[in-house]
């Protein structure tokens, strides 16, 4: 099942999931009644500080890859040597290693898992960049498959959002409609 929905509640609501749905692999919630209080604020803050730039980076990476898919769809070709393609490949490699190296506190294990899974899905897409199809129809088929993968990754990133830790999918600070007043 492709996680077309991006709404957190929909991942958390009991559903019948199809085989392969990411929701089936989410680690179970910790049933230890003391687990919440065993995590200190300092641990959570340290986790937030470590993960926030990677969270933002992963969101931007998905946006950038989606944009490359969009240009390929419009133009009917995908140029793997284009600078805008090489940059996200480097970013994906860095981001993957760093996200996996983080050791989350108990209360953040499930969200951290979602980020690792999202990164893995993104990696599957970027791995295929070195072998793009030729011909507009074939390129568009490939773009279609990549886009579906990126939607899965994006759904996981949104599920891992936590405003209290500063993990937001969109940077509203520069929006034309928003201010900090």
């Amino acid at each position, binding site marked *: 099942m492709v996680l077309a929905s*991006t*709404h957190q509640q929909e991942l958390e609501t009991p559903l019948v999931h199809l085989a392969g749905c990411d929701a089936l692999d989410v680690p179970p919630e910790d049933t230890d009644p003391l687990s919440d209080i065993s995590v200190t604020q300092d641990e959570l803050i340290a986790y937030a500080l470590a993960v926030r*730039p990677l969270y*933002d*980076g992963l*969101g*931007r*990476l*998905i*946006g*950038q890859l*989606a*944009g*490359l*898919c*969009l*240009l390929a*769809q*419009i133009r009917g070709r995908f140029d793997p040597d284009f*600078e*805008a393609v090489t*940059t*996200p490949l480097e*970013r994906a490699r860095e981001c993957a290693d760093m996200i996996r190296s983080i050791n989350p506190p108990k209360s953040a294990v499930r969200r951290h898992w979602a980020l690792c899974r999202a990164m893995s899905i993104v990696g599957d897409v970027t791995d295929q960049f070195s072998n793009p199809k030729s011909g507009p129809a074939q390129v*568009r088929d490939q*773009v*279609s498959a990549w*886009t579906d993968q*990126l*939607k899965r990754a*994006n759904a996981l*990133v*949104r599920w891992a959002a936590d*405003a209290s830790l500063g993990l*937001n*999918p*969109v*940077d*509203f*600070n*520069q*929006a*034309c*409609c*928003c*201010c*900090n*007043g």
Partner: protein
Amino acid sequence: MGADYSVWVLEYSYVTKYHKSGVIYGAHNQGYVKLPYCYVLIKGNGHTAMVDVGYNNKEYGATLSNRFGVENWHSPKDVLAECGVKPEEVDTVFITHAHFDHLGNIEDFPNATFYIQERELSKWIWAMSLPDRMRWLMGAVDPADILRTVDLARQGRLVAVDGDRENVLPGIDLHAAFDSHTYGSQWVHVRNDGQQPSKDSWVLAGDLVYVFENMEFDGSAVGIEKMYNPVGLAVGSQQNLLFATEAMMKSVQYEMRRVIPVHEERLRDTFPSRITKNELRISEICLAAGHQSMVK
């Protein structure tokens, strides 16, 4: 001869306290203004079109409400119903720029073809490739919007425009304003007499101007009556914003009220309007021959 198109500005949400310096470049310490969020409905010549589609409240509503004081959001279904239109009837959407509050609700318009500048897409993608220290250049864009835009392209419902384009719909032109508010902003020119040049036209300005004051700023400080003063936010340049303002004004023979700033609360003073049961304003910019007023 009557006008070809009716145009309404439809408020769908608002911020009651927005820094004036965000609206008028350089207006520091001058307090706050109400900032309505609106999109534009255009009807005529057998078409139902929109300029921008607002944001997706399911995705952003809680954050915008709690953190930025954005209030009273209503869906396109509710807002358009006040003009007797269903979102499914909209066949054309002109996206002035890719900020989430203009592009973020495309899923609510399942039968529309969307027009956006290709540069708006390609430059955002470029901006996202820049290092973190350049993040200022890439705010307010949602990766999910780009994914949804890919879907539009896959469905053949996305037209990426390169520069100006005349008669996208009969008598409706798109004009690029590159490197201004955003990399590939565009404005919409409705020539209601179908003529070129037109003597009865309207400009839907997107965020190239927020309010009338961007076009009639007090110029007494430099010894003139009025001058342009750009909006507070530009990833391009203030110079390009001013030249875009000049181009828009020129297209309506410098009759300022014909350049419609959609964040302008004073539209109510300039055009017939009413408040709906949801406490949102409808401003009627012009009526096509035979169309019924939506504000009386």
